[in-house]
């Protein structure tokens, strides 16, 4: 698993990259009450706003960490957005993206580097 400075995680799953937010981010956002997910088959470019997370307090944008095509989104979040708080690294994932070259994830921080960032 790799991590962005925007507190997202990326995990390679077969030929796809799964994206979510870190426990640190979920804690900072507080109780999440709504997640707006992108449409499947959307082409996204790195830094596009692809997901909107609404906590009780405020709305936050999640940026696409890589260029690619959204091929799957976590529909379970529509009914149960609290999954992001309960299991941010697992059941609380946002979307799966198909990229040209999976090695793009290597640009991002390792867990040790990320822990140092939030330390």
């Amino acid at each position: 698993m790799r991590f962005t400075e925007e507190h997202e995680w990326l995990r390679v799953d077969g030929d796809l990259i799964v994206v979510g937010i870190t426990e640190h981010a979920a804690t900072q956002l507080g109780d999440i009450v709504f997640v707006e997910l992108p449409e499947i088959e959307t082409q996204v470019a790195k830094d596009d706003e692809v997901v909107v997370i609404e906590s009780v307090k405020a709305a936050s944008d999640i940026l696409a960490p890589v260029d690619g095509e959204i091929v799957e989104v976590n529909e379970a979040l529509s009914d149960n957005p609290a999954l992001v708080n309960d299991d941010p690294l697992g059941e609380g994932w946002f979307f799966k993206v198909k990229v040209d070259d999976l090695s793009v994830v290597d640009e991002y921080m390792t867990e040790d580097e990320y822990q140092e960032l939030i330390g």
Partner: protein
Amino acid sequence: MSNTKQLPLDALHKELGGRMVPFAGYDMPVQYAAGVMAEHLHCRAHAGLFDVSHMGQVRLVPKGGAEATALAFEALMPAAVLGLPEGRQRYGLFTNDTGGILDDLMFANRGHDLFVVVNAACKTADLALMQAGLSDTTEVIAITDRCLLALQGPEAEAALARLVPQVADMRFMDVIEADHPEFGSLWISRSGYTGEDGFEMSVSDAGAEGFARALLAMEEVLPIGLGARDSLRLEAGLCLYGHDIDETTSPVEAGLAWSIQKARRAGGDRAGGFPGADRILSELANGAARARVALRPEGRAPMREGTVLLAQGAEVGQVTSGGFGPSVGAPVAMGYVPAPLADPGTELAGRVRGKDLPVTITTFPFHPHSFKR
């Protein structure tokens, strides 16, 4: 360095895990360890302690008779001050010459004075307004050495009565002064801004920490931050000054005409005589052009402040407060629309991130009030 001020209980908030944010010139806890949702639900089920010491506390002490002070105060706002019984509190609005609202406030008749609580962001202007309007008849005393705490929720009475037994006999909007051997003088009103039963308590800076700790030590009491304070008052349908009411909104548009007693209305003993009376009395008689309405967005996406409201594709108004209501379990909002569109059941759209989503006008409050009347 930030130029925000610290509350007298700053260290206690940090010890309790409060996440501090700047608000109205003060470092304030937006939430504690439990989080906004848990704090909100705890307050509705048990009791929550709020530090609202950023708000302005003012005493109006008559130089001569109390009637002269009451009448001078009435010249600043449409509420009736004369006739408010001793030991009772009332909600009022300072208005401007165009009938807009300068601030909303609470005032209590304590016999020897009127005790006034105003919003933090407005307190300097309010003090100047009161000094200009009342200093001939009244000493206007800004209180700077007392905290203001609120204890809200269905178990607030049981909790506070352990320390101050006489609060059990109070009803909604009663005020008392009590002397506590440890915490000093306590100025208590049975009121609040959550829709729940509860109390607002002015306590000396010296006594505040002990008083807060004594309450927090009780099983039913959790500290509650600004985040839940906002979601609680939103569900209760109560206005946040600077958002739902401001210098451009009139009391009638805002649905606050109930705060204008008969004596100040047309045909009353002291009709008019407050800033903006022409507009406000006319709106009382003929209705206002727009109205503050309760809004229930369909689905789960909150419609926050600034969300444009549309009817048949045309912009008709805006959301002034909105978010997720933890007790309602769905998004809730309020905003202004033209009077013909203000009836409950009217279906509008709210534009959220470029998409027009359905929203229905409903009635306030979103969560029922449980005041002890």
